[in-house]
């Protein structure tokens, strides 16, 4: 619902991350499945937000991020797409779950 404002924040963050932002060719972003953001809308917003910015040449690359669950009993780490999930091996409900709910600027590809 608010993808455009997030796209604007990403453009600003990418523009401020390097001394010569006009050389940025690719902006790598990890979008969590539970971030509440739609990747297609974010990509659309990014195209609009980069116009008249310091990184007009940049292309957005989105990688989807899952949530990570951990079962202490099995010492098992597993990926899933819910806020909370039981252990897929023993069914225990006593799992720790984190990640997959954020939008992160992962990398910038910059021309030499």
């Amino acid at each position, binding site marked *: 619902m*608010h993808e455009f404002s997030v796209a604007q924040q990403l453009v600003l963050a990418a523009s401020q991350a390097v001394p010569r932002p006009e050389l940025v060719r690719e902006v790598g972003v990890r979008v969590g499945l539970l971030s*509440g953001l739609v990747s297609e809308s974010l990509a659309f917003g990014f195209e609009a937000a980069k116009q008249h910015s310091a990184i007009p040449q940049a292309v957005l690359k989105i990688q989807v991020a899952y949530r990570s669950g951990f079962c202490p009993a099995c010492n098992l780490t597993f990926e899933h797409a819910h806020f*909370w999930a039981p252990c897929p091996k023993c069914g225990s409900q006593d799992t720790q779950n984190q990640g997959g709910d*954020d*939008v*992160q600027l*992962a990398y910038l590809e*910059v021309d*030499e």
Partner: protein
Amino acid sequence: MTRIPQNWSLKEQNRQAAKQQQRLFDRAGCLVIELLGSPGCGKTSLQEATLPALDRCGVLNGDMASDRDIQRLKPFCGWAIQIETGNRCHLSASDWGVLSASELAMVDWVFVENVGNLVCPAAFPMGAHRRVLLVSTPEGHDKFTKYPTAIAAADLVVISKMELAPYVDFDADFARESIHSIKPHLPVLELSVRQQTGLEAWMIWLYLQRSKHCQSEVVP
């Protein structure tokens, strides 16, 4: 081409803004409770039932338009401020800019009523110490699984308008099960402002948060 790793995070940005705000609250010694929920779930009615029983309260209210809620709540608190968000679907930490340090110093409790919406407000923490999700029985016992982000963000779920439960086939056990399938152990309170039931438990929860906060969470 050179790849330069980055570590900017949206969540971290929001968290920092919220934390900075929370420090101001802690310095002023007030506990901030945020109410989330869809339009008409009873956020303002719950405050009308709560504020008269508490001393030194302030209210910040977000709505797309009108100051209707503030007019209702003004008689019960030290200050009541309306933020008309226009086209924005949620309040954010920067909205606290309307408050002065002296206004914060006047109160022990601040209630923030976010824009009626189960989607966006959940993703934008404002720095409240506790976030309370309200869902009213006519919205349906299956509403929780449909809006998991709101549950994940909440410290308490209040099921309001319990007096209507029999008329709208609200299954409270089903509701609790769905809430706990998203966030196990999340406390759930059932209440009716109209029939004045369940309000003691709500007040106890509030005072419990206050004492917990005073004991351990104050950031210097």
